[in-house]
C-alpha cells in the first residue's frame, strides 16, 4: 500500500547510537563462578562486607530459577557465555578529566553528553558509565559545596563505606528476584547519590549508561539516599551499539527517602532494540524500587521506554512513612519484535499513603507491550488511596497490548481506582490529519504525543522534548 512505503521513507532513520567505540578494554574471561566474583571484588578493592554480600547473593542466585511468568519469548541466556567485567584501559588513578582517554570523551560527545569542562552541560551533573565502569562525574566540587555526594558506586564504596554498608540491599534485597540476585553478585559500577538533610540539590543529576562491548553484560547498581527534607531530580539515559547478539543488562536501582524528602527519578531508555527481524538488541531486566521510609516522603518514577529487545521492569514504591507518596508515570513504546513487560508495584504500608499510576503503552509492528502492576493496601494503610490509569495504543494490526492490574487490599478503609482504555491509530485518523495538510509523520507524532501528554508533562523539560522526538523516530514503518 502507498502508505506503508511512505512511512518507511519519511520516518526511517537508523538507530543513531549504534556505533562501537574502538578502544582497548580490560575484560575478564567469560563465565560465572565464585572466582569471577572474587576477581571483580578484588579489582574494585572492596571491603570484606561487600565481597560477602556478593557471595551470599551468588549462592542464592544458584538456587533460583530464571522467571518465566511474564511469558516473554527469548532464547535461553547462557550465563557462562557472558563477560562480567569489561573496562576501557586507562591509567590507574585518574585525577582529572584531562587524563580520560579522548576516545571515551568523544564517545559521550557523540551521544550528546559532553563531559569536558568547556562543553559540559550547564545545568545537569553527569555520571558517565561505560560498560562496567564509571568514566567521569561532572560538577562534583560544586555539588560537594552543598554537601551533595554524586559519584560512581565504586568510589562510594571506598569513600562513603558507612552509607553503602547501611543502605545497600535494603530496598532490593539480594534474594528479591533472579536478576536482582545476579546483579548483587556481579554488579560492577553505577551511580551513588546522597543528599544531606534540608538540601535541595542545586541541579539535576544524571547518569548515562553506555554499553559498548557486545559480549559483556552490564550490571549497574544505583543507590540514591535523600535525607530529611531534601530533594533531588535524577535522570537516566541509556544507549548501546547495534550487535546481532543479545546483551544482558540487569540493573538494580534503590531509592531511599526519609521524612519530607522527595526523589524524582526519570529514565529515557533507548537501548538498541534489535533489527526488524528481532535479531540482536538488549535484554533489559531491571529491578527498580524506592522506599518512602519517612513521613510525607515522596518518590516519583517517570520513564520513557523505547529501546531494548525485551524490557522487564517494574519501578516500584514501598510506602512505609505516614502520608508518603508514590508516583509512576510511564510511556512504553514497542515496535517490530520488541517485547515490553513493564509497570509498577505500589505497596501501601503506612497510613494515609497515596499513589498515582499513569501508564501509556504504544505497540506497533509485531511487538508485545504489557502493563503489569500491583497495588497493595496493607492492614495499616488506613485512609490510603491509589489512582491508576492504564492506556494502550495499537498501531497497525499485528501488535498486541495487554494490561494486568493486580489489586490486593487488606484495608477496607482505603480507596483504589483503576481505569484502562485501548485505542489505535487508524488509517482514517491519519487521512483526516493529512487531508488538512499535516505531514504524515507529524500526524503520527501528534497523535502519539497527544496520547502520552499526561506522562510527558511529568518529565524534566529537556527530556520531554527528547522523548517526543524519540517516539516519532521509533515508529518507523509501523502504520499500514
Amino acid at each position, binding site marked *: *500500500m*502507498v*502508505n506503508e512505503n*511512505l512511512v518507511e521513507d519519511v520516518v526511517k532513520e537508523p538507530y543513531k547510537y549504534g556505533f562501537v567505540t574502538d578502544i582497548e578494554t580490560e575484560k575478564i574471561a567469560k563465565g560465572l563462578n565464585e572466582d569471577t566474583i572474587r576477581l571483580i571484588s578484588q579489582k574494585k578493592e572492596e571491603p570484606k562486607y561487600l565481597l560477602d554480600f556478593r557471595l551470599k547473593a551468588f549462592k542464592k542466585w544458584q538456587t533460583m530459577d530464571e522467571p518465566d511468568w511474564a511469558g516473554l519469548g527469548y532464547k535461553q541466556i547462557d550465563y557462562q557465555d557472558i563477560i562480567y567485567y569489561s573496562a576501557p584501559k586507562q591509567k590507574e588513578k585518574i585525577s582529572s578529566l584531562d587524563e580520560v582517554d579522548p576516545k571515551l570523551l568523544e564517545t559521550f560527545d557523540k551521544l550528546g553528553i559532553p563531559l569536558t569542562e568547556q562543553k559540559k552541560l550547564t545545568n545537569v551533573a553527569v555520571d558517565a558509565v561505560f560498560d562496567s565502569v564509571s568514566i567521569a562525574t561532572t560538577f562534583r566540587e560544586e555539588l560537594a559545596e552543598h554537601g551533595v555526594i554524586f559519584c560512581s558506586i565504586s568510589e562510594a564504596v571506598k569513600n562513603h563505606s558507612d552509607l553503602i554498608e547501611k543502605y545497600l540491599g535494603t530496598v532490593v534485597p539480594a534474594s528479591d528476584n533472579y536478576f536482582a540476585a545476579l546483579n548483587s553478585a556481579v554488579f560492577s559500577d553505577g551511580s551513588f547519590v546522597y543528599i544531606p538533610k534540608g538540601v535541595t540539590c542545586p541541579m539535576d543529576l544524571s547518569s548515562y549508561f553506555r554499553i559498548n562491548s557486545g559480549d559483556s553484560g552490564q550490571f549497574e547498581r544505583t543507590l540514591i539516599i535523600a535525607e530529611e527534607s531534601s530533594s533531588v531530580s535524577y535522570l537516566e539515559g541509556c544507549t548501546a551499539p547495534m550487535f546481532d547478539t543479545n546483551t544482558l543488562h540487569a540493573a538494580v536501582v534503590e531509592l531511599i527517602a526519609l521524612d519530607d524528602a522527595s526523589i524524582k527519578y526519570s529514565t529515557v531508555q533507548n537501548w538498541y532494540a534489535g533489527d526488524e527481524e528481532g535479531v540482536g538488541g538488549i535484554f533489559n531486566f531491571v529491578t527498580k524500587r524506592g522506599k518512602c521510609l519517612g513521613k510525607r516522603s515522596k518518590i516519583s518514577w517517570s520513564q520513557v521506554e523505547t529501546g531494548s529487545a525485551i524490557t522487564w521492569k517494574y519501578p516500584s514504591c514501598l510506602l512505609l512513612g505516614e502520608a508518603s507518596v508514590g508516583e509512576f508515570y510511564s510511556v512504553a513504546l514497542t515496535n517490530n519484535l520488541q517485547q515490553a513487560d513493564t509497570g509498577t508495584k505500589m505497596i501501601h504500608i503506612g497510613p494515609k499513603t497515596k499513589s498515582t499510576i499513569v501508564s501509556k503503552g504504544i505497540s506497533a509492528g509485531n511487538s508485545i507491550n504489557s502493563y503489569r502492576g500491583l497495588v497493595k493496601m496493607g492492614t495499616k494503610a488506613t485512609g490510603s488511596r491509589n489512582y491508576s490509569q492504564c492506556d494502550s495504543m495499537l498501531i497497525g494490526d499485528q501488535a498486541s497490548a495487554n494490561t494486568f492490574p493486580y489489586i490486593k487490599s487488606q484495608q477496607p478503609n482505603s480507596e483504589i481506582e483503576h481505569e484502562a482504555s485501548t*485505542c489505535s491509530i*487508524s*488509517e*482514517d*485518523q491519519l*487521512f*483526516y*490529519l*493529512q*487531508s*488538512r*495538510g*499535516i*505531514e*504524515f509523520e*507529524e500526524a503520527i507524532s*501528534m*497523535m502519539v*504525543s*497527544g*496520547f*502520552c*501528554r499526561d506522562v510527558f508533562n511529568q518529565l524534566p523539560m529537556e527530556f520531554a522534548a527528547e522523548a517526543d522526538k524519540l517516539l516519532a523516530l521509533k515508529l518507523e514503518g509501523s502504520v499500514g
Partner: protein
Amino acid sequence: MASKMKESDPILEVENLFASTDNLPILKGVSLTVYPGEIHAIMGRNGCGKSTLSKIIAGHPSYNITNGDIKFSGANINSLEPEERAQSGIFLGFQYPIEIPGVSNLEFLRVSTNARRKFLNKEELDTFDFEELVKEKLELVKMDHAFLTRSVNQGFSGGEKKRNEILQMALLEPKIAILDETDSGLDIDALRIVASGIKKISNAQTGIILITHYQRLLDEIEPNYVHVMADGQIIKTGGSDLALELEKKGYEWTDNFVKET
C-alpha cells in the same frame, strides 16, 4: 457539462476517472469540471460512488485510480499525497469527521492552517496570532471558544463536528471545497449556520462541490449544476431544477439506468 466558453481556467478537472478499492471497481468513468465561482451538487443513492469520488480527489490511500486523471489548477495530481493536495488548496469536508483523542483542536487547527500558509508563502502564525484569526472565524460558524481546548472532534455532537469542518474550511481558505454530506445529521438551525458559513467563505475564486441526498441544503446554497450519480458514473447533469425534480421523483429511476447499462 455546459459547453459555453469560460473566462478563466478550471480549478478542478476530473477526466474519465475509474477507481477501485480491494479490486472492486467503484468509479466507472466520471468526468467533472469545476470553474472558479461555481457550485456543483452531486446527488445520488447511497453506494453510487459520491463519497468515493470526494475521497479520491482528496487522496485517500484506500482507493486506486485505474484509469483517468484528476487535474487541479491544470496539473495532474493523481499521485500527490493527501497533505500535498490539502496544502495546495483542496478541502474535503468529511461526512463523518474523525475523532482524534489527546490532540487539542486548537493545536490541530493551527498546525493545519500553517501547513497551508507555508504553501502559500505566507508567514506561519504563532499561538497568539492564530488565536486572533481563529476567533474571527469562530464567529462564522457560531462556535464557542471552548471548542478549541477540547480534543479534535472528541465528544462533539454531530452538528458540532460539522461546524468544526466548516471552521477548518474557513481557516484553510481552499480553492476548492468538496463537502461530503455536510447537511446530514443537522437540525434546521445548524443547517442554516453551516450554509451561511459556506456562503461567506466561498467567493468568485473558489469552487464548491456539495455532495448531498437532499434538497434542503440546496435551498440554502443554490448550485449552478446538479449531477446525478449512479453506479460509479454521472448519469445526468442539469441546473438547480434537476434537484427539485429528484426530490419529487426520488432515485428509483437511477436504478433502471444502472440495469440498462
